């Protein structure tokens, strides 16, 4: 009991405290270190959860499903904090950020981490909602942190769309409560996961249907599914790169996690609409749409933002298909995508810093001028494009092949989208990385550690998945049905 308490509370408390502390710390170097330290602490706490989790309390719950997300998000959160430490230094020099902004930035970073962990651990749909909104609003502020015209516009767009999403999600939550309330009576228990799951089969299906629509749209806005994606590319492109990494690597996942939870609810109620087809459709739309959008991108960060949309589409598609194989593949894809995409954003951040631009057309021959960054980007893009021997290849292999045997047409549509996206990514990649080098060839004082740590993980996963991880994922896949 106590061990579990420590774990859970630590995961929540350390970011919260750190946030409070960072808000008052003036010295940015120190705060950067503190940021790293706090993230590390959270990470360790998350690992401790792996060792000993305990019974669910009405507020907190740690099961196979969310611990995947918790560990993933704390890991990426940690590496990102390391990256951001080396990133912001340069931002200060170029004067894009002032120390004041920076204090704010660090505090918000931890607030966001807190929000996400809370959302993942919460055993109460209301609490989860609150936490996700907290995280979202934190990111909204951070996207706007540069105060530039573009940043503000992006943040404004993000804010408006996000708050509409908030509203939808809340309405959905209320509906779920109302569906549960007649069966479970009033009060907390009818908002508590474990209880809901247990009794969902008796709920009113019609209410659940409406609820799921709102929840799907509400949280789907944050997952960045087309046509709710509009905020995502700009938020990624205009915010500081660490935030882009965290957005793609974590926030999307957390929202996805919420959707998965409610999908479980829906599937357990026989009379309710099966959520699968809806998810599959929206996933496909996102994949194909994003794939075509990739071609006309001029801003490198926006390019990869769209690729995030594409991958979220794939993942939602996989979970929508359901079944042990597809769910397993979906989980794998999600994990790999978080690692890879954040690694790509780390790289892109440094590239943008050394080249002093985010315009794709101004970046050429990177492997000539900055070999490590260049080849790092090559590796990352190859991974994200689903090339072996990196992890995403395995998940896409499973998704496509398992789907094709069941629903050939869907699989072909998916493959079509993947191919289009692949073409766009490779086109841009070759343009950026090869050819005559342009722009400054000044060496970058980048921290390559986070980049290559992620890529190494992805590579390892593509070749060898440890059995413990596999059984764990398979169990989760079973849970998801």
């Amino acid at each position: 009991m106590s061990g579990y308490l420590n774990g859970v509370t630590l995961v929540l408390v350390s970011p919260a405290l750190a946030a409070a502390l960072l808000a008052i710390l003036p010295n940015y170097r120190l705060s950067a270190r503190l940021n790293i330290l706090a993230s590390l602490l959270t990470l360790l706490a998350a690992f401790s959860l792996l060792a000993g989790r305990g019974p669910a309390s009405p507020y907190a719950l740690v099961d196979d499903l969310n611990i995947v997300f918790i560990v993933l998000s704390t890991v990426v959160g940690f590496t990102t904090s390391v990256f951001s430490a080396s990133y912001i230094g340069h931002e200060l020099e170029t004067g894009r950020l002032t120390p004041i902004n920076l204090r704010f930035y660090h505090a918000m970073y931890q607030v966001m981490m807190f929000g996400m962990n809370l959302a993942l651990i919460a055993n109460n749909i209301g609490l989860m909602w609150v936490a996700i909104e907290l995280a979202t609003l934190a990111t909204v502020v951070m996207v706007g942190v540069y105060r530039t015209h573009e940043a503000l516009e992006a943040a404004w767009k993000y804010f408006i769309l996000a708050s509409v999403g908030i509203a939808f999600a809340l309405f959905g939550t209320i509906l779920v409560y109302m569906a549960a309330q007649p069966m479970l009576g009033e009060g907390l228990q009818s908002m508590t996961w474990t209880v809901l799951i247990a009794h969902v089969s008796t709920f009113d299906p019609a209410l659940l249907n409406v609820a799921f629509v709102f929840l799907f749209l509400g949280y789907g806005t944050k997952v960045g599914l087309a046509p709710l994606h509009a905020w995502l590319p700009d938020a990624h492109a205009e915010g500081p790169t660490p935030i882009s990494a965290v957005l793609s690597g974590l926030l999307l996942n957390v929202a996805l996690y919420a959707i998965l939870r409610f999908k479980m609810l829906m599937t357990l109620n026989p009379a309710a609409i099966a959520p699968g087809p809806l998810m599959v459709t929206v996933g496909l739309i996102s994949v194909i749409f994003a794939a075509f959008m990739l071609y006309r991108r001029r801003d490198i960060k926006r390019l990869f933002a769209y690729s995030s949309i594409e991958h979220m589409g794939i993942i939602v598609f996989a979970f929508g298909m359901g079944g042990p194989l597809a769910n397993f593949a979906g989980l794998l894809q999600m994990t790999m995508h978080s690692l890879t995409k954040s690694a790509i954003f780390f790289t892109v951040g440094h590239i943008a810093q050394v080249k002093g631009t985010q315009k794709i057309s101004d970046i050429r021959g990177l492997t000539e001028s900055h070999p490590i960054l260049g080849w790092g980007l090559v590796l990352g893009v190859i991974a994200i494009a689903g090339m072996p021997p990196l992890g995403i290849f395995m998940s896409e292999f499973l998704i496509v092949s398992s789907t094709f045997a069941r629903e050939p047409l869907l699989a072909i549509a998916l493959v079509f989208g993947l191919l289009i996206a692949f073409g766009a990514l490779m086109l841009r990649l070759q343009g950026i990385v090869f050819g005559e080098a342009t722009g400054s060839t000044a060496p970058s004082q980048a921290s390559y550690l986070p980049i290559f740590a992620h890529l190494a993980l992805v590579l390892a996963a593509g070749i060898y998945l440890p059995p413990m991880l596999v059984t764990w994922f398979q169990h989760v896949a079973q849970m998801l049905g």
Partner: protein
Amino acid sequence: MHNLAFDVSHLLAGGLVLVSFMMLYQDRLYALLNVFALHAVLLSLSVGWQAYIQDAPHLYVTALIALIFKALIIPIVLHRMIVRLGIHREIETTAGIGPIMLVGIGLVGLSMAVMLRVTADANLIAREDLAFALSVLLLGLLIMVTRRNAVGQVVGFMSLENGLVLAATGAKGMPLVVEISVAFSVLIAFIVIGIFLFRIRERFDSVDVQALDRFRGDRR
């Protein structure tokens, strides 16, 4: 008693929908704000009534919050803002009033159609409230969509939140968590919007969202 309770809550909720329609109809900012204040008042009334019939005292708090924040402070602040920004010109709605009204009616019909599927064992008040709440929410969204002006959109968003509150209070014995979070989100929403409007005014001399949209991602 029960019958009366049903009638009153029905009346209030219906009134909310009606006021939403009025907001939809308004095309002057001041008028819009006033109507919104009315909207908030009605909301607080219905919440209060809910508190009374469910004898759930914490709902009075919610009602109070709604009354103070939404019916008084926000309209006033927005008034100030409009004056300061000097945009008392008419807000041109995108489409004509007529079609918008029609769409609104369609939405209400839709929300009814959706909600009446709910099996009868969910109690009646809840059902009706839910239907109205949904339509208020949809209308609020419609207002956001049809207004070109940031203030207008903010108001639309607020009325959307009202719909939420209505639904939340309609749900019997929903834990306090939710109201607080609603109030919370509204507060945060308001602060952030305020900040933004400030910044935006520093940058360009209007809160016209289109001015914001001058830059949109990759410039062509």
